[in-house]
């Protein structure tokens, strides 16, 4: 097999990061429940192969095993764990599908509140890490579906960047971002983008300030999100030119732009749908928009 120097550099770097991880400080207390972590009961014993070291070291065993992973998917469209009426009722969504990392239960609600409303940004990398297994599964599924280079499954990590053209996120309004100080979806998207060296693009803009989604009923949400978003045309143009230039190269033989759109929660899907609609409307090339959310309620 031909190994390019760049490939070697990447390997060396990842080996270095892995060994540096051994020296990284470990928090003495669980970031969620605050109880001191003693080694005996710590999460190291739990054989969650798919979890990152950081996640395993920052949470205690009890909190870690309380995470309701969404592994069995019943609705292929919206990624729900149970068969889903919404998707049968209105099948024409402008995105390909949604996948979520966890069920939105009481514990996850508390965790998100700690991060999003209390502003404990130490949790951001943990939530980001929780997305990784789901994201890798999504990419694997795409690669199976399009059957490109099926022989190199083990090298999937190096190839992930080939499947995606951009990572983007659901924006928040100016007021909210000043109030909260950060956009949780942007932080999650940034986490994924950094990890897999994907381009993080600010494709969307929230055009007006709306009430918090969590205070609204189902029908209100559906109605309100219609004209909430617009496309950041500069960034979008850049995306298209980048994509066009890469279409010709040997690495990819695809002719669609594949975008990963990230948000924290997927409830009715109206936000994700509104965002993808706007992107589709703006696009000159065919788009495939995949939604990755942290929780599915």
């Amino acid at each position, binding site marked *: 097999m031909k190994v390019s120097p760049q490939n070697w550099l990447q390997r060396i770097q990842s080996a270095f990061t892995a060994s540096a991880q051994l020296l990284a400080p470990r928090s003495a207390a669980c970031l969620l429940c605050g109880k001191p972590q003693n080694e005996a009961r710590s999460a190291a014993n739990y054989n969650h192969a798919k979890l990152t070291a950081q996640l395993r070291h920052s949470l205690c065993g009890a909190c870690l095993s309380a995470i309701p992973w969404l592994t069995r998917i019943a609705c292929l469209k919206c990624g729900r764990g149970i068969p889903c009426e919404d998707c049968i009722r209105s099948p024409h969504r402008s995105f390909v599908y949604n996948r979520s990392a966890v069920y939105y239960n009481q514990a996850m609600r508390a965790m998100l509140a700690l991060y999003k409303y209390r502003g404990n940004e130490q949790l951001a990398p943990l939530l980001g890490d929780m997305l990784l297994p789901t994201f890798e599964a999504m990419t694997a599924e795409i690669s199976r579906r399009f059957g490109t280079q099926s022989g190199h499954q083990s090298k999937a990590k190096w190839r992930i960047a080939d499947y995606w053209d951009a990572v983007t996120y659901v924006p928040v309004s100016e007021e909210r971002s*000043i*109030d909260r*100080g950060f956009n949780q979806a942007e932080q999650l998207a940034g986490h994924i983008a950094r990890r897999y060296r994907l381009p993080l693009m600010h494709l969307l803009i929230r055009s007006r300030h709306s009430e918090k989604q969590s205070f609204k009923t189902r029908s209100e949400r559906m109605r309100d999100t219609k004209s909430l978003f617009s496309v950041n045309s500069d960034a979008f143009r850049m995306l298209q030119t980048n994509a066009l230039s890469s279409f010709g190269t040997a690495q990819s033989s695809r002719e669609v732009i594949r975008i990963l759109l990230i948000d924290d929660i997927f409830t009715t899907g109206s936000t994700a749908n509104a965002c993808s609609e706007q992107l589709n409307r703006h696009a000159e090339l065919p788009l495939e928009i995949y939604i990755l959310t942290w929780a599915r309620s």
Partner: protein
Amino acid sequence: MRAQVYVVEVRGCWKARITIYPEMDKHFWMNGGFGKAGSLNEVLADSAWLVNEPLPLGDACRAVELWEAELIRRRGKQTAIDTRQTDQGSMAGCYEAIELLLACAEEAKREGQNDGKAAGRRLWWRRRSGRQRQTAMGGAGLSGLVERWERSWDGGIVGVGRAEETRERGGAGRSGDERERGGDRGRAISDAELGEIAAGAKLAAVVMQGRALLRSEAHALLVDAGGPGAAARWSGVLQLAALLGRVRLSGSIAAGNGGRLDALGRRRRERSCLRCGSGEAYMHRTACAACGRLCAYCSACIGMGRSRECELLVVGQHDAQLGGKTGPGCLKQQVMQLSFEQRLNKWRLSPAQSAAASKALQFAEEQSAEPALSSTGKSAKVRDFLLWAVTGAGKTEMIFPLVESVLLRGGKALIATPRRDVVIELDPRIRKAFPAASVVTLYGGSEQRWESGDITLATTHQLLRFYHGFDLVVVDELDAFPYHGDKILQYAADKSCAPGAARLLLSATPPTGLQRAAKRGKLPHARVPVRYHRHPLPVPKLLHTSAVRQMLQQRRLPPRLLAAMQASLQREAQLFVFVQQIAQTEPMAALLRAALQHSAVAATSSQDGERADKVQRFRAREIRVLVTTTILERGVTIPKSDVYILDADGRLFDEASLVQMAGRAGRSAEDPFGRVYFCSRERSRSQLSAVRHIQTMNRIARKQGYLLPASKGGSPK
């Protein structure tokens, strides 16, 4: 959030200020009239310059700090510089002030970006070169950076000549439309609105007094107090209150000099949270959309709202006029003339209680008289008084006279306990003792969150939201979790005391540091060695048994323990059984149920949702035996109870804990001789010192004659 900085010349003296609402400052300094509220500023400014660029709040505060430090430094050298500058006149002063402010703003921003590394001498270079540049350009370079405020026409005198001169000499580059825009902004606030804002500011001044709140909390407080409705006006209201000197606005995390020198001999500035006092170790820097740079937040007090560098912290200031405030004058006189004994009579205390209470009262009153005498020095530090009272001594009753005294003097009292249950339990007792006073009960989720009253009952965490708020602070259960060993809560307790306030520390088992200080005479204290019913404390008996784990494995109680428990049940006592681990409570309860052949056995722990209910049923004698952990070591009073501490040699039970658990027995006057057993495999040091502790207290009580004589049913020994 972001804020702007400006310099203002008042009576020939330059000051630098931050503002979160520049129009308000402009109006305040240049006009002073606030609609119906009349004129709030008697000394209008001669001129003022606003730096146009909004800075992150933390940087703005830092810029003003640098400016002031530099001014003080220059004033030291003034004599040398002065002669050189006389020919340039006051305009030189003006440019110097602005230039300095701009340089300080730059420096503050740079520091903010470079993670707080002070520049040391380099800053000096920049400033000097800046001044040279200014003299060369005649100030024309300033035009885009700053805005000049002028007095509005209805404000009275306007120095026309000087304004002209300014334009000639300095503001040549300032375009006309820019000035007009400034004028428009000044006029944008109508008279009626100004009146409302002034009223809001006065309200804010009153309700904020003694508090330290984050922006969102301050808003909630103002809404609750009936402040103005529009959210846009908050900043105006708070800014005006700050201009009037009634609140202080700053970022809620600030950097101070400290820490070690680095390799280049520069001192790194260390941030700390102004609200909870936590240092650099708890600061997390993240990208912040509100101020546009990396900005630190405090992870230590995040449970009480996020405190960060660019988040506004509003600190209420004490009104100088209120210092001499008195309560109902004649009543106060009357009471103060009575002797301590007469005043204490009303509370019907036992001899030991009144002795301690009068000592504490004397301490509290002599101290509060002190700041009046030495009003010049602000050295009036919080002074502590330790009330070391055995379990069941009636501590709450002893603080009543002190609370009364502070209320009569027109002050505010705070009673802080570590636990929420205790706060809720204390509430009716306080209300009953002081029917005329307003009582506010604060804990997480309390409905009275934004009220203020004469007496405040709070969990120690709530103290983070106060600043110099109370003239008497009572810290109950000083040695209990979470107060003990928690620096944040101790900082909060220090901060909540008004200057010169008395702080009363209550404990049955003070930490060794305090015990030592008390013994050496460094800490004023009073000891109450006897319970209110004047019987000695039950002395624990040591019982040699196997470990709990072994009992559970063998499903068998040691015969001696079983016999003792049966004797207790026979004498109709309630049984407390303490174990070390939560996991052991349920199995132990099952074992006891079988061994004692008694069904009224229950277990509870901190993770039991029905704890309050079970304690209630235990009190009502529906449950006869309660297996529990240290969670019930304090604050629970069950008449006629016996205490069994299993695994008393375990590491979780230290001396204080053992004394507290032993203190559950014999608390009522009807049954003062409860039984206490320390059951363990080994005699540990903490068991022996706990026994010694109890015996010492009994001996002191006997020596001081507090115990009931044998003729009245006292103990014969």
